């Protein structure tokens, strides 16, 4: 096998290696005359990345025989690519014969230096294959990496897992008593409930997919998926470097999610490389706490998707976990289309300063948000409800109504947007368990 590449292809290649190195340790290489494929699987077997290159990605692409495969350590490839790309004229990769024990990576630099690395390779690698058909996923969204990074910036940087809750966006403003339109997607930090000393920042972020995502498709009941943040960020960096949007496909808790760069109109057919990242998701749905979808052991066997990392007994997350520490949760709103209580974690400021320039409509909302926060009257909240912005429909519901709603949640007829998402317009600041003006979590917690 012999390859050679330079210029922009080399930059893309280096970006691929960087991303792969953030996912797994070993790189499985499979080459055939029609394509070159890189795969890696992380050690907990919860993340699988695959990148394929067409022959015309390379300056030279020669494969002898039908298929060549080997595996190398990603650390070694990263060592090769430590040399600044701007000083490299071209990179050549050579596997002299299919049973060779070392694969040679050669850098020819502009300044005349030539660096030849011989990296030990395993010629009988245990190559996993995981190919999921994107069309089988019922739900998906497309987002600009920069935007999703900005949303992730609201979460504690050490956050390990995140939950995305997707609901069906209503197109019409619904009856204020039962439905809420607009903020169809929630991002929520997932903190392992078995961790004893939990001093982490808990964050919930509701966003309007119409504003934050380039595309969004979800119908039916709300679903949630919980997966690793590290891998997500690695893939976002990768896509951002390639200047493409991220397409994320999902189904429901327990089913893997798939991410791919959105290349061109036909999703890959026009490009000479493609990448996918498959992440396992937690089996326990955050929406149906206390009611796991199926017994963990059985679920673990499905689709070769082992339970993501933390420990098999962590699944018994009860609803109580959310309700036990209501005041520890930070609740914020997306600045784009909502109002929100400032819980003083400083995130709001960041939201307002950076990122997209809010439209005048949004600026108005932010102003109203501050106003609402300051005043104790209800009138401002009502203003929001009746405001011209169709994205913002605070739910005016009594707390008394909650048990009903909860019952609905547990049953089959789920409301799309939990009423407790929204500030209760009827309540005074002093009322209730918490003195803070805040949004109740989804799902609701018990009143005491």
């Amino acid at each position: 096998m012999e390859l050679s590449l330079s210029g922009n292809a080399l930059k893309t290649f280096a970006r691929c290696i960087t991303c792969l190195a953030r996912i797994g340790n070993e790189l499985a290489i499979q080459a055939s005359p029609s394509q070159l494929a890189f795969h890696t699987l992380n050690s907990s077997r919860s993340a699988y990345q695959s990148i394929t290159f067409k022959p015309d990605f390379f300056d030279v692409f020669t494969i002898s025989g039908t298929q060549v495969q080997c595996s190398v350590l990603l650390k070694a490839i990263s060592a090769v690519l430590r040399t600044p790309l701007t000083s490299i004229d071209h990179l050549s990769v050579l596997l002299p014969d299919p049973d060779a024990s070392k694969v040679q990576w050669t850098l020819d630099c502009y300044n005349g230096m030539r660096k030849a690395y011989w990296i030990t390779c395993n010629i009988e690698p245990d190559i996993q294959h995981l190919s999921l058909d994107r069309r089988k996923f019922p739900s998906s969204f497309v987002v600009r990496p920069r935007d999703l990074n900005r949303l992730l910036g609201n979460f504690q940087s050490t956050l390990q897992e995140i939950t995305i809750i997707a609901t069906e966006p209503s197109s019409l403003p619904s009856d204020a008593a039962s439905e809420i339109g607009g903020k169809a997607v929630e991002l929520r930090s997932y903190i392992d409930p078995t961790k004893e000393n939990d001093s982490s920042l808990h964050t919930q972020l509701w966003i309007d997919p119409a504003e934050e995502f380039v595309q969004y498709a979800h119908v039916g009941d709300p679903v949630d998926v919980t997966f690793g943040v590290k891998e997500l960020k690695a893939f976002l960096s990768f896509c951002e470097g390639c200047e493409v949007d991220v397409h994320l496909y999902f189904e429901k808790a327990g089913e893997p999610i798939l991410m791919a760069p959105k290349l061109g109109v036909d999703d890959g057919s026009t490009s000479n490389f493609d990448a996918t990242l498959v992440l396992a998701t937690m089996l326990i749905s955050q929406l149906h706490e206390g009611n796991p979808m199926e017994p963990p052991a059985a679920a673990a066997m499905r689709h070769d998707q082992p339970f993501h990392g933390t420990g098999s007994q962590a699944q018994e997350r009860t609803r109580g976990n959310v309700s036990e520490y209501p005041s520890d949760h930070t609740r914020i709103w997306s600045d784009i289309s909502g109002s929100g209580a400032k819980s003083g974690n400083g995130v709001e400021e960041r939201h307002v300063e950076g990122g997209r320039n809010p439209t005048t409509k949004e600026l108005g909302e932010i102003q109203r948000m501050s106003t609402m926060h300051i005043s104790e009257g209800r009138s401002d909240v009502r203003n929001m409800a009746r405001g011209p912005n169709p994205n913002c429909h605070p739910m005016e519901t009594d707390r008394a109504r909650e048990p009903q709603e909860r019952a609905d949640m547990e049953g089959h007829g789920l409301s799309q947007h939990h009423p407790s998402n929204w500030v209760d317009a009827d309540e005074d600041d002093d009322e209730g368990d918490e003195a803070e003006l805040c949004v109740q979590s989804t799902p609701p917690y018990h009143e005491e």
Partner: protein
Amino acid sequence: MSTSATEPEAADLVCQLDNVQGMVDALTSVRWKRHQDAVVELSEHGIVLIVEESRCLQAKVYLQRELFVRYGYSAQGRPRFGVSLGLFVDCLNTFSVPGHSSTIEIQYPGPDMQLLLKSLDSANACIYAEIRTRIPDMVSWDYNFEPAGSTPLSFTVKSSALKEAIDDLEWPGSSIQITLQPVPPSVTFRGDGHGNLQIDFKYYVNTDLLVAFHCDHQVSYRYKYKFLHATTSNIPASVIKDNRGSKLTIGRGGMLKVQHLVSVARPSISHSHVDSAGYQQPSRIAYIEFFVKPEEDEATGNDS
């Protein structure tokens, strides 16, 4: 014997330096460990500082008298003393103010054989330091570098490229083999550890990578990585910026000599003592020399 009427007259050496940062850069380039004992030798030609490790690696910094604004030498013979290199450099650093010309006076010996440093910048304030010195334990090992044969085996390579190559050669995790061969004229650095890395420098006329190359027969020697790494690990940024070259010479028995040039000249503010840059440049350079002993067993294909 000089009469000790006033201290400055009795001192072996009183010198003034107008660019402390340059001296810091020069001395930093021979730091490869946290604790290093240096031997300083004073003479009418200048100051030489020598550091050494386990009889395998030695470095010398030559600060000739022309680098100093004033160099008053009045010793009998050549005084030698030991001083902690880290302490000396860190102390000099406190006198160095970025962006300002910092002139200091160095005097030896003080009343208790100390090394005395004093700032001369300001009329209102003075920074003053004393550094304890020691009697050197042993005579500095004279590496007795001899040429390998009638023709030298040497090459001059861009310092930045040399540093880059040696940094890359950390990956194999092994000793480094340096090979010079006349046909085609090239220098090769190679490491064979858990992986292999070979870096080739070819002597083409049109690149400025290998500036000079002299070799009439193939030679190849191995050197411990950590010693080779010490020769470039703390090259000051000014060397890279000034696009300087480093000269490597292989002597008899495979002894490797690595020479760097570190600029001590002040980049900006003009001082009355400094003439136009062009004239003063040659003497505003400190010479750094490293000697690296080869590994004993490997001497493949070499003559004598």
